């Protein structure tokens, strides 16, 4: 009885806007208290932040993303993709999708893609056959496109949480990176086809390919182009652990943007570090306290009980997956992606493994849902960022974005029910 009252109180406090770390702490405290365990265990669990080598990737990839967002990387990326893909029929739409996906993979779906790239792409898109409404939808959707592509931070975080659960299955971050490739590409390709379909019968915007322009854009982005390649080469060549790849990325980006392009001044660097680490601090704190609550959940065998409970009603893996998608889409709209990961993965992953779903595949399903959650009315975050950035009413953004959301839902169905799309590159 007391437990139910506490649980209800915490849920109400949560909806009232109490910081998530405090709620998770309260859950852990209540749990350990009723098990008669000294609450110092919570500090011990938080200290485990220092026992997880992979976690270093989080602040360092975030920092690299923030620095790139502050420099003119976005402009160079647009020039580059435009020069090389602009000649394709419907070019600019496709250029936008690719650029945003790559940019989001590096900067995280924090909304910075809409703010930095959207501002460049939207005015250009609007003046083509795509028109205002379509362009708005495309830019809003692109804000979370690329979440499945390496080295996206949410993918790394999923891997870290999954590893804490000791499921007896190996879950490597490098496997998650490989698994995200095709599903991420599928989303881009489907959206590109939808873009082409939407302008059928109208003059197709295309530019002619210019070797001179291509060369100029290549030269311009000379220092940034190698970045994705040496991250991938370092990791899959066995030279770098993921966390080390993050360190190399951070130092490389600092050197390139501060000393070569000189777009970020040394005096600005401190402010950027501070800004990015405040965000990271919030996330690391939630991870730390959730190590404690997860430990309690496992101790109390709650995922097992949950599995038994669900299995009594849902006998079929595919029905489970449908229900999972519905749940995650709702959560993705309400919670931000990092909180959703630390709260839901410890509960859902053991259940999913019970149904015979591969943990790597589940990670891709999870993040694909979260990506769509960003666009789900009425509270998806991208909708508000877009409304704020382009100074338009949210209702207009809803209307513009819904068709894109439907296309992504189609991709989600494929990702969920076709495991090989995610697992084809892995030896499983």
């Amino acid at each position, binding site marked *: 009885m007391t437990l139910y009252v506490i649980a209800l109180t915490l849920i109400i*406090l*949560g*909806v*009232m*806007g*109490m*910081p*998530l*770390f*405090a709620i998770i*702490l*309260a859950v852990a*405290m209540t749990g350990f208290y009723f098990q008669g365990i*000294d*609450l*110092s265990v*919570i*500090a011990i669990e*938080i*200290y485990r*932040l*220092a026992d*997880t*080598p992979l*976690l*270093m990737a*989080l*602040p*360092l990839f975030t*920092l690299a993303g923030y620095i790139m967002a502050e420099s003119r990387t976005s402009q160079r990326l647009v020039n580059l993709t435009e020069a090389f893909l602009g000649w394709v029929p419907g070019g600019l739409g496709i250029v936008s999708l690719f650029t945003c996906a790559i940019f989001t993979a590096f900067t995280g779906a924090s909304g910075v893609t809409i703010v930095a790239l959207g501002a460049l792409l939207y005015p250009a898109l609007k003046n083509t056959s795509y028109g205002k409404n379509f362009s708005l939808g495309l830019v809003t959707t692109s804000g979370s496109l690329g979440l499945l592509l390496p080295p996206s931070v949410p993918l790394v975080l999923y891997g870290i949480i999954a590893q804490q659960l000791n499921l007896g299955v190996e879950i490597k971050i490098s496997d998650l990176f490989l698994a995200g490739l095709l599903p991420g590409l599928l989303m881009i390709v489907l959206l590109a086809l939808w873009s082409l379909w939407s302008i059928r019968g109208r003059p197709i915007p295309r530019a002619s390919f210019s070797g001179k322009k291509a060369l100029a854009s290549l030269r311009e982005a000379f220092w940034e182009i190698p970045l994705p390649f040496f991250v991938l080469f370092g990791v899959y060549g066995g*030279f*770098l652990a993921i*966390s*080390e790849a993050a*360190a*190399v990325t*951070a*130092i490389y980006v*600092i050197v390139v943007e501060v000393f070569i392009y000189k777009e970020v001044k040394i005096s600005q660097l*401190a402010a950027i*570090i*501070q800004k990015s*680490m*405040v*965000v*990271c*601090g*919030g*996330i*690391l*704190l*939630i*991870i*730390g306290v959730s190590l404690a609550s997860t430990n309690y959940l496992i101790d109390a065998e709650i995922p097992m009980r949950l599995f038994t409970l669900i299995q009594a009603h849902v006998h079929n893996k595919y029905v489970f997956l449908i229900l999972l998608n519905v749940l995650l889409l709702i959560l993705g709209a*309400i*919670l*931000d992606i*990092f*909180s959703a990961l630390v709260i839901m993965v410890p509960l859902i992953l053991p259940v999913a493994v019970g149904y015979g779903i591969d943990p790597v595949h589940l990670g891709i399903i999870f993040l694909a849902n979260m990506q769509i959650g960003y666009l789900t009315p009425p*509270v998806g975050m991208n909708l508000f960022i877009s409304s704020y950035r382009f100074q338009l009413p949210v209702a207009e953004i809803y209307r513009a974005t819904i068709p894109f959301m439907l296309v992504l839902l189609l991709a989600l169905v494929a990702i969920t029910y076709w495991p090989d799309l995610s697992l084809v590159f892995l030896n499983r």
Partner: protein
Amino acid sequence: MGKADQQASGYHRIQLFLRRVEDSLLVALVLMIIGMAVTQILLRNVFDTGIFWGDVMVRILVLWIGMVGAMVASRKGEHISIDILSRYLSLRYQKLVSSLVEFVTFLICSVTAYYSVKLVIGEFEYGENAFAGVPFWLCEAIIPFAFSVIALRYFLLSIHNFTRINKIAS
């Protein structure tokens, strides 16, 4: 200038000073972690050697970055939360709700701080080193410290919002 004003500006100055210390510490920790990580990679891949306590230090730095970052995030109560309710409330009720929620956060952080102090004291008596002569208790000390600061800040936020309730005409 009245005495109260002088006190207020003194309080303000202390706060400003503490903020500078936090900000500089955060930047220093990040530069240290990048420096150490890159040094280790170079030593291993080029010279086939390494600093044997380097990896431990880097991992502890992650904890410190997280804790100091979390302290800074609590200055304006910028921690991640689910905010569905507040946009449907009047300004007056928003203040009331924030004040309440911040007070509970203060309580929870205080309890956490108390129990982490217990852990640090225990570790101090045990007296083992984490790396390169740095004792474990010192590495852990950031946890109670951060939670105390976060608790204090949420307490101040709560009081601040509470005093605003009646100033807003309903």
